[in-house]
């Protein structure tokens, strides 16, 4: 029940295209859903995050779509650029009674944007 399942494992997109990465969760107590971007040899960096009271959040070229009933959320990268080539992780956490804020991460998606 603590798992977050991410797909696809890898993705190749042409420059200018749309990259879409999907995640599904089971724990209905999760109430915070961030996406992290990680370059080789670096730590994960927060890209964008959403809470379940909204269905969509957009920041620049990055959009999260959230479907509470389906327990799914996705990251859309519009106008994908070669510099977006990285590994992307979805995550989830619960800020309920435990209030630790610890993140449960998906398995990651390696994105390659071809010039």
């Amino acid at each position: 029940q603590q798992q977050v399942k991410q797909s696809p494992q890898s993705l190749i997109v042409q420059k200018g295209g749309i990259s879409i990465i999907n995640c599904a969760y089971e724990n209905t107590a999760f109430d915070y859903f961030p996406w992290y971007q990680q370059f080789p040899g670096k730590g994960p960096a927060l890209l964008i995050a959403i809470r379940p009271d909204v269905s969509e959040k957009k920041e620049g070229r990055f959009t999260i779509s959230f479907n509470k009933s389906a327990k799914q959320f996705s990251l859309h990268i519009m106008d994908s650029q070669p510099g977006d080539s990285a590994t992307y992780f979805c995550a989830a956490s619960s800020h309920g009674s435990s209030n630790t804020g610890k993140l449960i991460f998906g398995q990651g998606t390696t994105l390659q944007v071809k010039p």
Partner: protein
Amino acid sequence: GAGVSQTPSNKVTEKGKYVELRCDPISGHTALYWYRQSLGQGPEFLIYFQGTGAADDSGLPNDRFFAVRPEGSVSTLKIQRTERGDSAVYLCASSPNSGNTIYFGEGSWLTVV
């Protein structure tokens, strides 16, 4: 410094040896987390500190792993009797308080040979 600082960046040790990994969080951040990331996997939670106390250590794999944060700032992750399976990147993260965005360091890459 501006971000979470971790030392060493790389550590190679022999099986059975003791290792310490250090984390210096962003100044003023009260919450500190340790995660472990194996090759090709997402980070896995190890332990969370709020101030000086370990509020949640449910992710520590066994009693060979221990972490401290004696003054509520710098934290040290300690691994005794290292095993080859401990080889991974150990990531530290901090946040202003639990529940806010957490910021990761670049990690300490541990290789046990």
